[in-house]
């Protein structure tokens, strides 16, 4: 199958899923109090997006997410490079990090509330905590993915340190780092939204939780739709950049 | 036993007949001619070696003889009947990689084809251990593939190819992944096994010395499309020895094959 027909097939699949979502309540097979039809949810989402209160929530969530990423990604990358460059440190720390990496982060959320209270920075801190390890481990992997032969070849042609960094390290590491960024966005989105749903006064996660509690199904589904579409769009955008930067990889 | 088998050439009977075979691969709408006008006959009990440049269609031809791939034109008869599907009663196959099942011990790997046919466990193991004995691995039946060397794995693979006692054994570069020394001893071993079992063997290789050392007859192929451009009868006496490789006859045969393969045009029909 060609790329175009593949894409067409996927769109068809999407249309089918949405059509089913629309048809089930409309044909009365499912109560529309339980599953509001897609069109109604879509309209609700558009209406919600015009409300200043929702803007406030989205901005809050976005700021928390942004702050978490701005702190955790550079820190994680630096620590990861340090770890990759320092063999002794890696020997000691890697098993520990690997263990921490596989530990579920969400169960620590109550501790962040106990120490930082229910606040903006509590969510940022939890976001960083959930994200930093994946970034760190990816950065280590990125440094290790730079092939010794390539560095040697560059040196044998008299490349300076700066040139090696620019022309060997960066292009080899960039795709892995972008992948790390993508995962970081996924992880910290989940973390921030979860923290908002758990205990918060604002943010889209808090809104979704309260719509759920008061059985406002249209708003609830609209909120889920907004969050999902945003997450997918951001994810695809980073993936698109990733592909552009790593076209030479097969 | 050896005495009786050295007379195998006396009972002339075609075991493999390939008639007017051609093959065109088609991938994504692009057709490419892989084999053209292949005709050959292998007498029962003969050792035939196929050589030719990379991509000339040796593996394809072997796959068709094994019934693993259907040719687009022509007929293949094994033991007088067409080869349309794999038939372990007539043909055993040994590949370049031993392809042993990693979750089975050596003896269970050898017994695998018998298991497929529903033989009882004790009979399976008896026959499999006899085969392992034949390839010199009677002691290693309980070991798993990951505990065997490359040469040992390939021996297990050969034992597996022989366990159903098919009259024909097809071997596609079976020793290509081995180092030179192992390869030499494996060649000797194979000839010993062959002389003890009276199989008809078709053997693909890239090594010219191996070809001359093993073969009764060498078929030389050319590429684009794959044709048979020469048949060379190797009239060195058997049993073959390592010393024969230094003789003038051996060198001449080797030379002749090399010149055929190197020639840019396939304008040299046999």
């Amino acid at each position: 199958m060609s790329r175009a027909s593949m894409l067409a097939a996927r769109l068809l699949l999407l249309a089918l899923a949405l059509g089913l979502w629309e048809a089930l309540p409309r044909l009365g097979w499912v109560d529309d109090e339980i599953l509001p039809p897609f069109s109604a949810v879509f309209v609700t989402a558009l209406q919600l997006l015009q409300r200043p209160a929702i803007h406030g929530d989205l901005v809050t969530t976005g700021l928390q997410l942004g702050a978490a990423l701005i702190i955790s990604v550079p820190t994680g990358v630096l620590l990861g490079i340090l770890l990759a460059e320092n063999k002794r440190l890696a020997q000691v720390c890697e098993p520990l990090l690997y263990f921490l990496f596989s530990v579920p982060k969400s169960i620590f959320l109550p501790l962040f509330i106990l120490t930082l209270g229910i606040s903006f920075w509590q969510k940022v801190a939890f976001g960083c905590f959930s994200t930093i390890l994946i970034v760190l481990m990816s950065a280590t992997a990125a440094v290790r993915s730079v092939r010794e032969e390539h560095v040697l070849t560059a040196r044998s042609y008299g490349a300076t340190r700066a040139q090696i960094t620019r022309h060997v390290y960066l292009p080899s590491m960039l795709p892995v780092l972008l992948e790390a960024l993508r995962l970081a966005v996924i992880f910290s989105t989940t973390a921030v939204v979860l923290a908002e749903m758990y205990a918060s006064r604002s943010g889209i996660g808090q809104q979704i939780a309260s719509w759920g509690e008061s059985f406002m199904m249209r708003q609830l589904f609209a909120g889920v739709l907004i969050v999902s579409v945003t997450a997918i769009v951001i994810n695809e955008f980073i993936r698109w950049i990733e592909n552009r930067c790593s076209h030479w990889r097969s | 036993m050896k005495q009786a088998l050295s007379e195998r050439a006396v009972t002339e009977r075609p075991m493999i007949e390939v008639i007017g075979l051609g093959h065109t691969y088609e991938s994504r709408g692009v057709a490419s001619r892989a084999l053209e006008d292949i005709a050959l006959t292998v007498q029962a009990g003969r050792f035939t070696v196929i050589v030719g440049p990379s991509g000339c269609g040796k593996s394809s031809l072997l796959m068709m003889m094994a019934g693993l791939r259907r040719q687009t034109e022509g007929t293949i008869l094994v033991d007088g009947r067409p080869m349309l599907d794999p038939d372990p009663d007539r043909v055993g196959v040994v590949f370049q990689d031993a392809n042993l099942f990693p979750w089975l011990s050596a003896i269970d790997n050898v017994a695998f084809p018998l298991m497929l046919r529903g033989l009882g466990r004790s009979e399976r193991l008896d026959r499999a251990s006899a085969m392992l004995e034949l390839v010199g691995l009677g002691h290693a039946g309980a070991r798993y593939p990951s505990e065997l060397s490359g040469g040992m794995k390939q021996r297990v693979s050969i034992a597996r190819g022989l366990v159903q006692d098919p009259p024909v054994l097809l071997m596609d570069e079976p020793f290509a992944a081995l180092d030179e020394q192992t390869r030499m001893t494996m060649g000797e071993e194979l000839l010993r096994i062959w002389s003890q079992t009276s199989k008809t063997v078709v053997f693909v290789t890239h090594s010219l010395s191996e070809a001359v050392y093993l073969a009764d007859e060498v078929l030389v192929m050319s590429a684009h499309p794959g044709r048979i451009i020469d048949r060379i009868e190797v009239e060195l006496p058997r049993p073959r020895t390592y010393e024969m490789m230094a003789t003038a006859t051996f060198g001449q045969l080797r030379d002749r094959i090399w010149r055929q393969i190197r020639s840019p045009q396939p304008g040299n029909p046999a």
Partner: protein
Amino acid sequence: MSPSAIRWLIGGILLVLWEVLPRAGLVPQLFLPALSQTIAVAIADWRIFAEALAVTLSEAAVALVFACGGGILAGALLGSVARLRGLLLPVVSSLYAVPLVVLYPVFTAWFGIGAQSKIAFASLYGFFPTLLGTAAGIQTIDAQLLVTARSMGATLSQRLRHVVLPAAIPTVIASLRLGGALVIVGVVVSEMLTSSAGIGYLITSYRTVLDSPRVYVGILLVLLLGVLLDLGMRLLEHAATRHRPSAVPRRAAPAI
């Protein structure tokens, strides 16, 4: 000193600090109750915690059946049918970006605040990673083995039974391991959000009354559960892959 000795040392120092810092008043007891106090509370209240743990475990077990049953089946399908894979794998990895936790309120609205919602959410939470892991594992099955089996006259069902199935076992176990870790997280998270029983519920209730020692006990229990499960699965994996040097690419559970 050897790296592992240093690690033990670090662990030891952390435990000592855990005891000393709160006792010395350098860290508020609310943030970090002393280790001994935490243990004392765990022993005193063991029955409450055990009951909550039993609830969580039973729900996780049911969710594991759904998540892994579905994930392994769908993954095997995607892994073995190239066309389907090309069509759907990008879709699945796009969906992976969605923070699934936003769906939990939908489940509680549908099924109420009980086991059903938790099981539904945890199943979904474990489903996609299990699917992706299985699909990747199935793809690593050596196609040559199938050709070899065919050359021995194996029928399709024989090839499935004697080649694909045994070759897939390590993948299946790895998927169970990943899925198991994820469904536990899924159940605990949903208990923390809205529920009326289970270890996550306990953690949240103690958190709202600022009972730090019991919050810590709850968290430690969940960690312990995860570690034990991982250990058990690893033993199983080891037993099943004894003779295969590099059967399945290792994947760490991306637990959030």
